[in-house]
């Protein structure tokens, strides 16, 4: 009595999570590009595109409930389905943070440029890599990878503090305050994405071990 049809459904759900994550990661990338290149059209695309992310979350959630109701999953199957629900919530909120970056990109595009914050694109790059790796750890059921990703969160936190101090310093010139504030929000959005990566890594560890573990 192997449950092939059920496990095929699980594979499809996993694939849908990967697609949703890809969408979220490119939303973050596009929002950052819009910010750097002062591209209002691209920023607006990111904002409009969030509906798709939200729709994917709804769709995966509904499918997951359906599978739970029909298949009465247990053990690792049950843990995987619960993990999928948790992961898509994190991804949905990451999508919101990408929108946050995009809105600030639009705001900044209409203001005179301030000194480029070089660390901000670097921070975004690290965060995007973390998102990719966390989803890969989920697909690979890799708890070693999940733990390692969380350790890398320290780099992001360090950059965040540097950027924060730098922007705060630039506010001594009151002309810079509106732009610096917007950039602070961007840095904060990215930092929040990294925190949600940690949550996903904790979910992956729960999925594999059944233990609820606090990372970072």
């Amino acid at each position: 009595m192997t449950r092939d049809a059920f496990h095929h459904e699980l594979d499809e759900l996993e694939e849908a999570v990967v697609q949703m994550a890809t969408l979220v990661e490119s939303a973050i990338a596009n929002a950052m590009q819009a910010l750097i290149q002062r591209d209002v059209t691209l920023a607006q695309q990111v904002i409009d595109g969030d509906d798709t992310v939200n729709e994917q979350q709804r769709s995966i959630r509904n499918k997951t409930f359906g599978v739970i109701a029909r298949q009465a999953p247990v053990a690792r199957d049950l843990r995987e389905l619960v993990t999928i629900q948790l992961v898509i919530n994190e991804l949905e909120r990451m999508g919101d943070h990408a929108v946050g970056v995009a809105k600030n990109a639009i705001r900044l595009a209409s203001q005179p440029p301030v000194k480029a914050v070089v660390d901000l694109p670097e921070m975004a790059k690290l965060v995007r890599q973390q998102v990719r790796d966390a989803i890969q750890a989920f697909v690979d059921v890799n708890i070693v990878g999940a733990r390692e990703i969380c350790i890398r969160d320290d780099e992001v936190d360090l950059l965040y503090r540097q950027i924060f101090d730098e922007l705060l310093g630039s506010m001594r010139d009151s002309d810079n305050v509106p732009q610096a504030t917007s950039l602070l929000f961007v840095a904060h959005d990215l930092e929040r994405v990294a925190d949600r990566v940690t949550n996903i890594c904790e979910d992956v560890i729960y999925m594999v071990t059944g233990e609820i573990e606090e990372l970072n």
Partner: protein
Amino acid sequence: MSEVSTSDSLEDAIREASQKDAVAIPRLPTQTGQAPSDAPMSERPVEEGRIKMRSEHLEVFYGTNRAIKGVDMVVLANEVTALIGPSGCGKSTFLRALNRMHDLTPTARVQGAIKLDDQNIYGSGVDLVQLRQRVGMVFQRPNPFPKTIFENVAYGLRVQGNNNARELAEIVERSLRGAAIWDEVKDRLHTSALGLSGGQQQRLCIARVLAVAPEVILMDEPCSALDPIATLKIEQLMEELKREYTIVIVTHNMQQAARVSQRTGFFLTGDLVEIGPTATIFSKPTDKRTEDYITGRFG
């Protein structure tokens, strides 16, 4: 045995049921690369005072086949213990050893010990009739005798020599109430038990066990011949019964094990692979073989 047993002695009915299943148990080839059967169990310690029954390195042979390969397991009082595993894994064989059903199978041989409140039921001087009164059995197919509902329940008492009409009436009512079937049969106690539905017949058989005041009730797939509503009634009944009795159930229905039991043991090719709290077994089993079985990755 046919659905409606034609035997009119309890002993015959038990012998029939036992022999049928003894023959029906298929043997699987010995699995290689598997932990030795006497590997220590990874169960967390249980309170000694709660142990109702205990098997100690139990082995059951059918001829030369070793159907149970040295199982150490405890059954806790006032709980439902569910035994799961694929066909031929030994779970029914193990259950039957708990009240010496194998005594009725000429080719069967049992080694090791099973203790009921610290007394080895395989020790010398054990009264089998008394043992089976203390450890009752409910079979897969309801097997009421071709007698009235009343006489089915009173049967065990009459065998014990009790013919006090008032006392019998009292115990029959109490047992039928205990088996959650009194309201359905109270107006037809003196009609044939064979006129009841399958679910009612099974609850009648449970009432018949309750009448002789057992301590442990063994159930061998008690719902597999019943529809979902009748199944639900038996499951609710188990929940009630465990307050006064200790229950061990063999079931092919894993969701049933998950619903009704407090502890679940997983058998595979004659070994007890794992036993633990049911919530743990169904959310985070320790052994990969358990996980693969309950998630439908083999079996």
